């Protein structure tokens, strides 16, 4: 029995989802120098917003409208999150620790809020497309194929924007040298708002894709956040290529381990790999040292 195809397709699906969520984390770390523990909760909110707009028992406006609504809601939500619980601490002593607390608190608040508003019953978004295609000895659903293609395409578009657009250049400038960015006239406070909005939109995309593939629950973002955390440390904090490479490698290791060793021992194996990488390369695969 050939195990290659099922392992590979599973790795590509989860790799794309991890890459979407982890890029947001890594991007925020690179520019604002804080770690956003509410990123998983943002994914969850994206999925719920899409569900409320899409589901026939609620607004019933269809998946297209649901997807769009989730993107806009989370762009706005990401900006508000930054203004409410991150900006007040920027530039103060121990701001990084303070923001760990505030974003963790926000995550808990959002998860319980979702439980309170939507109830504990599992929800599910319709699939973006139905049907399967045969890939070697494995059937890959159209939904999975869309995830495999959409994730990297979106991140590629994002990378091109960072490379080419004036705003993208400004974002990279802030990441590389804050004082010099101030002195060429970049409004750093606006850049931070935009960075949060963009990373929340990436989380929303991941949320809608998750919501069609798995169940929507208030805590659906916890496991992806943990994996994204492993991914960014593994790939190198602040490095977009490192994060994407890290996402697919972690997904592949996870997928192989699940197939041959089992679900139960997979998390310890992932952390084992992470620790091994940290011992050899403390900054991650493609990361740089931050002071």
């Amino acid at each position: 029995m050939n195990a290659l195809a099922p392992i590979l397709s599973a790795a590509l699906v989860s790799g794309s989802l991890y890459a979407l969520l982890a890029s947001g984390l890594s991007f925020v770390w690179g520019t604002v120098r804080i770690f956003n523990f509410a990123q998983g909760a943002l994914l969850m909110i994206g999925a719920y917003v899409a569900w409320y707009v899409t589901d026939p028992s609620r607004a019933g406006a269809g998946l297209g409208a649901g997807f769009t609504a989730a993107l806009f809601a989370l762009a706005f939500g990401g900006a508000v999150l930054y203004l409410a619980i991150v900006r007040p601490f920027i530039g103060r002593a121990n701001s990084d620790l303070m923001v760990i607390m505030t974003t963790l608190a926000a995550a808990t608040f959002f998860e319980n809020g979702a439980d309170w508003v939507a109830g504990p019953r599992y929800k599910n978004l319709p699939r973006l497309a139905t049907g399967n295609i045969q890939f070697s000895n494995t059937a890959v659903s159209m939904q999975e194929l869309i995830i495999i293609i959409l994730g990297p395409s979106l991140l590629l578009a994002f990378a091109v924007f960072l490379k080419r657009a004036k705003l993208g250049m400004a974002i990279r400038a802030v990441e590389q040298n804050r004082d010099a960015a101030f002195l060429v006239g970049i409004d750093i406070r606006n850049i931070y708002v935009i960075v949060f909005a963009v990373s929340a939109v990436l989380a929303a995309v991941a949320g809608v894709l998750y919501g069609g593939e798995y169940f929507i629950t208030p805590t659906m973002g916890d496991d992806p956040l943990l994996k994204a955390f492993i991914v960014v440390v593994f790939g190198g904090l602040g490095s977009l290529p490192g994060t994407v490479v890290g996402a697919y490698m972690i997904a592949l290791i996870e997928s192989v381990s699940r197939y041959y060793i089992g679900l139960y021992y997979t998390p310890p194996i992932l952390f084992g790999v992470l620790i091994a990488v940290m011992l050899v390369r403390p900054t991650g695969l493609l990361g740089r040292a931050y002071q």
Partner: protein
Amino acid sequence: MPSMLLKVEDVSAGYGRIPVLNGISIEVGRGERVGLFGPNGHGKTTLLRTISGLMRPTHGRITFDGRDITTTAPKDIVSLGLIHVLQGNTLFPRMTVLENVLLGAYSKRAWDDREENLARIYELFPILKQRSRQLARTLSGGQRQMASIATGLMGMPVLLMLDEPTLGLAPKVKDELATAISEIAETGVTMILVDQDIELLLSVCERLYLVERGRVSLETRRGEKISQEDVLEMYFGKAASA
């Protein structure tokens, strides 16, 4: 007497509770080139950082072109044409030379004229044109300093502040840079030049301030001829040159 472009009045500033500037006052006239010198750690860099808005004064007032900019955000100060080139050729290290220089024109005021200014800058520093596709961190110290100054010029300065542009450079590179700075000065841009190289200051500037312990301890008068001896006298007192 030329009309005053920049006025720093009785400004104090510092890092945390450590004061660095203690009631410093300087004036720069339109079209004037003014040099600041003095021992390290006595506030020259801090003064520039306070003028450009990277630091807030705890006391005093700064006006530029008749406008109070004491608490203005750096980006708004840049858009008035007050450009500060940082000490230690700090660039955006993982961007190309061209990207660095283009970012210098980020403010709305300068963006539309960027192609024109870029051509002028390549004329002034031909090496930057050759290196335009290279990452900034791979440049030599002198080239990085040229790129820094070029980035500043792309912002179309009304007042250009250069902080120790020749710091740590080999004599030959230093000369090259000094020539370029003189050329920039000849375009008529108002300039504040901080440097340890007195010869450079004397060749470019019309007036000098000696900054010590966070204030101006001596200054030369307008229209006064200054020689190397005068500067030594400012530094070490009468006895040294006598």
